């Protein structure tokens, strides 16, 4: 393995840990709003790290661009969908969990 492979491995594993955290939050958090927090933020960072890990291995600038484009689009879609789901839940009168 060359040094850039080690960097890739570290970034990919870190990314996977964030995806695990997002899923764990989805299961452990008490209501729809808190679960959305876990999904949007942890998965966004997880995907960012995985994209970085793959950018290190990319063979062309076009491939780098494609990976970054994927991340930006998922970021936009994730933020908008989280907002829409949360808004829908609030409009249906789903109460939020409080400690």
């Amino acid at each position, binding site marked *: 393995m060359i040094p850039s492979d080690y960097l890739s491995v570290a970034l990919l594993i870190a990314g996977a840990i*964030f995806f695990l955290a997002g899923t*764990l939050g989805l299961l452990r958090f*008490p209501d729809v709003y*808190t679960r959305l927090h876990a999904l*949007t*933020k942890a998965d966004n960072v997880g995907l960012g790290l995985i994209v970085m890990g793959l950018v290190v291995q990319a063979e062309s600038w076009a491939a780098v*661009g494609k990976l970054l484009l994927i991340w930006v689009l998922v970021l936009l879609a994730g933020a908008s969908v*989280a907002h829409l789901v*949360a808004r829908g839940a609030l409009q249906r009168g789903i109460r939020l969990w409080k400690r």
Partner: protein
Amino acid sequence: MTLTRAKISWRTIVSRMGLFSLIWWVLTNGAGSSWWIGVPAVLLAVAVSIALVPPAPWVWSELLRFVPFFLLRSLIGGVDVAWRAFHPGVPIAPDLCIYPMRLPPGLPQVFMVNTVSLLPGTLSVGLDQSVLKVHVLDSRKDFLAELEAVEQSVARIFGASLEVSEGRE
């Protein structure tokens, strides 16, 4: 409508053509022959984008300054929520907060709504006449300062001044 039309400048058209051409180049791995389809597609995309998203007076330098701020804050947001998900006691204290935005309606507000959802501990759950409803994961934290910082940055990106609203504390 005529007002919006008048604001469309060559600068907007050229910069959007540049952006869409770049995306096309990325998608096709720079294959030369693909431009037979690429050029019409780019021109069409420019036309559609101008119809759907009227040109906004971006301040590019501010947008570039926003990128590292956003990346750092969203990384912190991810670490923060991951820590809470892994913690045995699930340390959260959620609450709903009302934030009257001072940004002008339209793209600046939409930009802020989406940004808020990706920053540490905040999720936008509603926007009604400039009043943003934010769900906060931990109401013990100083989320108000965070929201204000985001609003200031977004205002700078769009070159907007924040109106002083009354009855705001």
